[in-house]
């Protein structure tokens, strides 16, 4: 039961991208932020948005995190079943899990879904993940890169969004 760090801090990718096997992109659906999302971006996000993304890469919903030979799995964490997801982890071939901590943290391998670093500063914010509540799986194999999978998909127009909480009220 432990966490093993496997890389230094990076801001190039987040846990969602790392769960899909990418290390060059920040993925998040909410329209208010400037993160990449291959579908029209919603105002608030839910598990359904992430299920849509995972389906693009061959994942389907499954009921359990238990290791299944021939499949790779993603676990999605949230505080409550209806709240926005907070974290994602990917199952490795040996049954352990790998995840990237946040948009600016380290990544590592953990034996169980609830194993996270116990040292500062990660111990505090890892408590905010809630629990692993949703699971997805796909057969192990070769899958297209992010750019190949999302090529030609319609995007938001990209007009500046005026959000009424800045200094320009």
């Amino acid at each position, binding site marked *: 039961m432990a966490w093993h760090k496997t890389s230094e801090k990076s801001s190039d990718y987040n846990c969602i991208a790392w769960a899909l096997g990418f290390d060059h992109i920040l993925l998040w659906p909410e329209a208010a932020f*400037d993160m990449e999302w291959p579908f029209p971006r919603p105002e608030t996000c839910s598990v359904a948005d992430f299920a849509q993304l995972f389906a693009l890469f061959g994942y389907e919903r499954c009921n359990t995190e238990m290791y299944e030979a021939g499949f790779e799995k993603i676990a999605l964490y949230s505080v409550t079943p209806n709240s926005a997801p907070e974290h994602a982890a990917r199952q490795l071939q040996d049954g352990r899990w790998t995840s990237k901590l946040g*948009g600016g943290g380290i990544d590592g391998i953990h034996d169980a879904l609830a194993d996270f670093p116990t040292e500062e500063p*990660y111990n505090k914010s890892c408590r905010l993940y809630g629990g692993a509540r949703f699971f997805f799986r796909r057969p192990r194999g070769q899958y297209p890169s992010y750019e190949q999978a999302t090529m030609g998909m319609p995007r938001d127009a990209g007009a500046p*969004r005026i959000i009424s*909480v800045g*200094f320009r009220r």
Partner: protein
Amino acid sequence: MSSAVATRRPHVDLSKERAYADLFLPNGPLARSYVRNYVYHYELPNYTPDFLARYFVPVFAQALRDDTIASSNPRAVINHWAYAPIASLGEAAFPFIFERLDQEPFVWLSALPFLVGETAVTPEHRGRTAAMINDWKLWARNHHYLV
């Protein structure tokens, strides 16, 4: 006789709040200038937003970075207690934020659209950290927040 119950919040780290409060201690930079102004002018000092931003942005930025470093949800940044005082500084905080953009990019790339009220990131650069930083720095130079 009422029994005194010691309240203890084991999961709350008060070190950042203490760092903030230390600015006002008798040896802190704000308290010193407060006393000086009070003695000579007999009125409360009127700190300019630029003066406050110079001291507060680094303090709040460290709290934001440490508390949200493991969060992929960018909403965690703008929901954090240290985001509100930075937002309240308004435009005065921008030069110090853009100086720190390379140090904690996820924090500021998440917060800037809300602080500014618009986004500088082009649709094709979304999610690409280096390109997003360049877009925001270009915006900052065009608006004279960065030289």
